[in-house]
């Protein structure tokens, strides 16, 4: 049984039983049952005959092993971009166009050619080699707008290797930008240039092949000189980027991890918790978090191991006091809270009362806002506390105020940023802070309208920045429901606004407040009064939440 060797990028073959790669740990043979002719009944059995240690066990089966652990380090690595979709580079049409991974195998002493660098079409050593950078990186057209971080230095290393092994080889590197950021990287770049490598700023638009010589003609606009250049090369290496591993979605749903728009796992905080996942007890290391080189991966892995070790050795953990709590009497066993919890921190079985795993609860409050029966509440951000703030803010002259709910991490901090940056915006806004925009229930928004708010804003973090994995997606759903509800009640739905404002977007905060003030000016007193009447709370609808109590002014102290 002969199969293409995956480790050698299909440039050599392997058997059904093989060592994956020379540096494999443990360095033992594996029997690939997908390739084996069959073990039940045994079709061939030659490997068992050849093994004098009797190490071949045909009865061995794949097993699912369950372990209870206190921490998980996610280090699932990466996939390499497949350049077959980029037809202009002819990767599938021309034999002498190879990827940087294939180049790596061809020049490696342990590779299929034993380190003798030859081109695939005629097994001759090429003397003119071109490297094309950013293949599958920094390219929004192929869905990969990010820099892969490692390709520039990998190419520089390759050109130095070639210059060292074969001084007669002429290398040309086609690039957009060379990103040599790191210790001694700039020095390597300079050495590569001194060794004779030519760097041409500009990415080729097309590659053609000479059918006789199988040489490749690369046409490129040199953006430094502004001239169109044609290079005849014997081999072209596509410096391919990297992409998130294909199993990331499965791991993300298993561990309730969130992902960035690029598809990599999102850390809890980019500066303060760069190796912690938003889910407590889960740590990230290496490429799964973002593209990085070996040194950074090793640093991150060490940090993740230390964080995990600290957690396991602590004996006890400290959690924030703002976790959720279930009122077992009021709970109707519907399970909505468990469905909306981004952390899977609510345990619920059909027909049973929900319960909160406090160590896993991060305190977003989305469960509390989703419960129609007021049976689950968030400590220190209870419905009563937030509604009391709504009442207090709108107790006097509500028609002159723009009422805003802002999430603690981004929008509220965006307001702070606007303030400390001395940006001017109307003084009519009144902000009530919640931990997450998902904590803002329908009832809170409606109560603000009942209290006479002309305009209500719900604001939270941008999708990629949500501090509670993806809790703010529930905010979107809730606001949509509210728009429908307001429209049905004859209230202008535009009076409820939704904005994503990050902590750095002070300018956006100020702009939104100016827009809302303009909107407030268009809301008439009649509209406010109509909303008060039309949105009146139905008694007994939400038994856990006490009906809004009228604001009673404290009697003036007698003198």
């Amino acid at each position, binding site marked *: 049984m002969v199969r293409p060797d995956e480790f050698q990028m299909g440039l050599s073959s392997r058997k059904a039983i093989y060592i994956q790669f020379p540096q494999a740990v443990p360095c033992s043979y594996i029997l690939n049952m997908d390739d084996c002719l069959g073990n039940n009944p045994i079709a061939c059995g030659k490997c068992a005959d050849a093994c004098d240690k009797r190490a071949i066990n045909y009865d061995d089966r794949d097993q699912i092993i369950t372990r209870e652990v206190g921490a998980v380090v996610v280090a699932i690595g990466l996939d390499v971009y497949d350049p077959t979709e980029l037809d202009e580079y002819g990767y599938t049409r021309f034999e002498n166009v190879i990827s940087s991974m294939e180049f790596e195998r061809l020049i490696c002493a342990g590779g299929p050619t034993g380190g003798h660098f030859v081109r695939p079409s005629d097994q001759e050593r090429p003397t003119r080699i071109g490297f094309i950078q950013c293949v599958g990186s920094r390219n929004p057209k192929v869905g990969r707008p990010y820099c892969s971080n490692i390709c520039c230095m990998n190419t520089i290393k390759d050109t130095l290797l070639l210059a060292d092994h074969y001084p007669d080889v002429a290398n040309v590197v086609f690039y957009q930008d060379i990103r040599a950021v790191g210790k001694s990287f700039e020095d390597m770049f300079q050495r590569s240039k001194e060794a004779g490598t030519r760097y041409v700023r500009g990415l080729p638009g097309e590659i053609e092949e000479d059918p006789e010589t199988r040489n490749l003609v690369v046409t490129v606009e040199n953006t430094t000189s502004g001239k169109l250049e044609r290079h005849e090369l014997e081999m072209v290496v596509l410096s391919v980027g990297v992409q998130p591993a294909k199993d990331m979605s499965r791991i993300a749903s298993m561990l309730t991890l969130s992902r960035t728009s690029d598809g990599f796992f999102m850390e809890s905080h980019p500066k303060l918790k760069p190796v912690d996942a938003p889910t407590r007890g889960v740590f990230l290391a290496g490429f799964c978090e973002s593209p990085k080189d070996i040194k950074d991966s090793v640093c991150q892995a060490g940090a993740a191991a230390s964080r995990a070790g600290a957690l396991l050795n602590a004996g006890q953990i400290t959690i924030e006091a703002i976790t959720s709590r279930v009122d077992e009497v009021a709970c109707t066993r519907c399970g909505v809270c468990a469905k909306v919890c981004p952390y899977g921190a609510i345990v619920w079985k059909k027909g049973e009362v929900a319960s909160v795993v406090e160590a896993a609860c991060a305190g977003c409050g989305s469960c509390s806002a989703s419960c129609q029966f007021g049976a689950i509440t968030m400590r220190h951000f209870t419905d009563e506390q937030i509604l009391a703030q709504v009442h207090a803010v709108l107790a006097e002259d509500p028609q002159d105020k723009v009422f805003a709910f802002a999430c603690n991490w981004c929008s509220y901090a965006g307001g702070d940023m606007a303030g400390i940056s001395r940006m001017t915006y109307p003084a009519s806004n009144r902000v009530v802070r919640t931990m997450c925009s998902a904590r803002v229930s329908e009832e809170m928004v409606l109560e603000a309208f009942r209290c006479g708010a002309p305009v209500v804003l719900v604001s939270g973090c941008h*999708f990629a920045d949500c501090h509670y994995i*993806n809790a703010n997606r529930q905010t979107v759903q809730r606001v949509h429901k509210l728009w429908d509800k307001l429209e049905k009640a004859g209230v202008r*739905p*535009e009076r409820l*606004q*939704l904005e*994503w404002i990050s902590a750095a977007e002070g300018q956006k905060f100020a702009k939104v407040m100016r*827009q809302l003030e303009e909107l407030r000016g268009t809301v008439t007193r009649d509209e406010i009064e109509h909303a008060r009447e039309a949105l009146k709370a139905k008694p007994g609808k939400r038994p856990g939440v006490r009906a809004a109590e009228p604001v009673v002014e404290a009697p003036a102290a007698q003198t």
Partner: protein
Amino acid sequence: MAETTIETFRCMMCGHEYQEPVVKCEDKERSCPKCRSNSIRHLKKRVTKED
């Protein structure tokens, strides 16, 4: 390939209505192409019963 449909959205800030391809189950932050507001209402198609 995930199913893609053309959906209609309305900006609740400036009133701009526009259509955009939507991939089923996509997780995308929306903003108005005209005023950049995030108050984007997804106008669902009304289903009418045919006799």
